[in-house]
């Protein structure tokens, strides 16, 4: 469970990225966060695994007080939280399976890490994760030779190899074409349902958010302006979240929707 209460985030340069955020996310939810660019979506996600620090308020994730975590304790906490980035963040010049196995080094000793000695169990887990996202046969290819969609699947498999309870995703499909984006979102959905893993995804495109998430959180200028089931989202609400009319740009499937 994730509990924000009265959380604010002010960056060192004075930018107020989040203002008095209070929300609760239960285990197994699929939450989409929508809002304009600069609204504070990425900041909200980064707070959860402490890639950036809370300025005010309290944040409890999996019963840990995130503000207090540091050092070894923080690293242990992070092992159960996967994160997927818009730009995939894979290791270039390295095989797909080694990219996935990289998620296991947190649990390994320094010597094995140095020599890249992964256990049989870890390798099987990595392959299983790849199978889970449908690219098992690419295990021994080089990661940077895959297509964008395949690379994002590798990134997703990497988080799965962490055996996470939460997966955070920062605009995971924003740099993909609509068809591929749809497939990746289906992967997220399946993982969410099959393994009861909480998924929190920042979405640039409204239609994708509504299609896959059970719950939508709308942010405008650092404040939560909507929090409810996807079914309740309508034109008026979107106008409130975006502070303007919805345009083609906000919808990924604009063209294909007309079919």
């Amino acid at each position, binding site marked *: 469970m994730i509990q924000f209460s009265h959380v604010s985030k002010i960056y060192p340069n004075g930018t107020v990225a989040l203002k008095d955020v209070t929300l609760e996310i239960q285990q197994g939810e699929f939450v989409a966060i929508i809002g304009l660019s600069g609204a504070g979506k990425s900041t909200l996600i980064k707070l959860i695994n402490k890639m950036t620090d809370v300025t005010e308020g309290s944040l409890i994730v999996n019963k840990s007080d995130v503000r207090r975590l540091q050092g070894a304790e923080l690293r242990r906490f992070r092992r159960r939280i996967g994160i997927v980035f818009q730009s995939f963040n894979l290791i270039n010049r390295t095989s797909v399976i080694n990219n996935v196995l990289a998620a296991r080094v947190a649990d390994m000793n320094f010597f094995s890490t140095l020599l890249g000695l992964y256990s049989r169990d870890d*390798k*099987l887990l990595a*392959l299983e994760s790849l*199978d889970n996202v449908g690219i*098992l*046969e690419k*295990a*021994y290819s080089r990661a940077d030779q895959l297509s964008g969609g395949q690379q994002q699947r590798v990134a997703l498999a990497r988080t799965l190899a962490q055996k996470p309870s939460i997966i955070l995703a920062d605009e995971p499909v924003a740099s993909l074409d609509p068809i591929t984006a749809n497939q990746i979102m289906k992967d997220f959905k399946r993982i969410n349902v099959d393994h009861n893993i909480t998924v929190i995804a920042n979405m640039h495109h409204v239609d994708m958010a509504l299609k896959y998430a059970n719950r939508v959180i709308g942010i405008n200028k650092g404040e939560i302006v909507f929090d409810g089931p996807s079914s309740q989202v309508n034109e008026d609400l979107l106008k409130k979240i975006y502070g303007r009319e919805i345009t083609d740009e906000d919808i990924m499937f604009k063209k294909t929707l007309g079919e």
Partner: protein
Amino acid sequence: MKPAILEMYDKRPRTLVRNTILFVLMAVILVWSWETMDYGGINENGAVVARNILDALIRPNEAWLFNFTATGTSIPLLMLETVAIGFLGTILGAILALPFAFLSARNIVGPVMSNVGNTIISIIRTFPIFILGLMFIRVTGPGPLAGVLTIGIASIGMISKLYVEIIEDIDKGILLALDATGATRFQKIRYGIIPQLTANFISTAIYRFEINVRNATILGLVGAGGIGFTLIAALGAYRWKDAAAALWGIIVVVLVIEIISTKIRSKLVSGE
């Protein structure tokens, strides 16, 4: 566990054996090299000398270091001569390298000639700098002119090798277009290639200039000019403060040249 996963697991590349063999091979070579190392013996004297040298570096012979006149030993003038040797040598080498490079570039003369050319370049590179120095001294007598000629010939190898790489990287489209117009080989070089190459060539020469100035600091050892003779003579006579003055001269000049050269080079190569 799904059979497909186990099957994939069995297909994993076995690198452990190969890596272990490579590692052991490397270790054996290095241990064997180490075993045969010999040295004069690190005695107490060595430690004293080390301290004396460090002391001298903190307090070098300032009379030499800041003497800007031609009377007596002047580190600035010796370094100026060293830089001059490096500079003129680089220009000589950069020009002499041109024919070698064009006659060794695969995309211009074809594979057979290219191999011949590359072999000639390798032969020239084999001549150690001191051998060339002594050979030129038989022509000019001792002094910096021998140094210039030495540096010039000694840099042909690396410069032409880098030139060749640049030439082989040029945009083939232009050459094809010139072929279509029935251009001669000379015209192909003059109008299709040279414009693409100039900046990269100059950049290469400047890169080699840095190395050449460093090399020019040791030519004095065989009498081919520069600061090297002063340095080695001072070391040989245990005059640490004098040697330290020469070392500081080298440090300052080489550092300044490296800074300037890096600036110019990166501007040049990316300026197009």
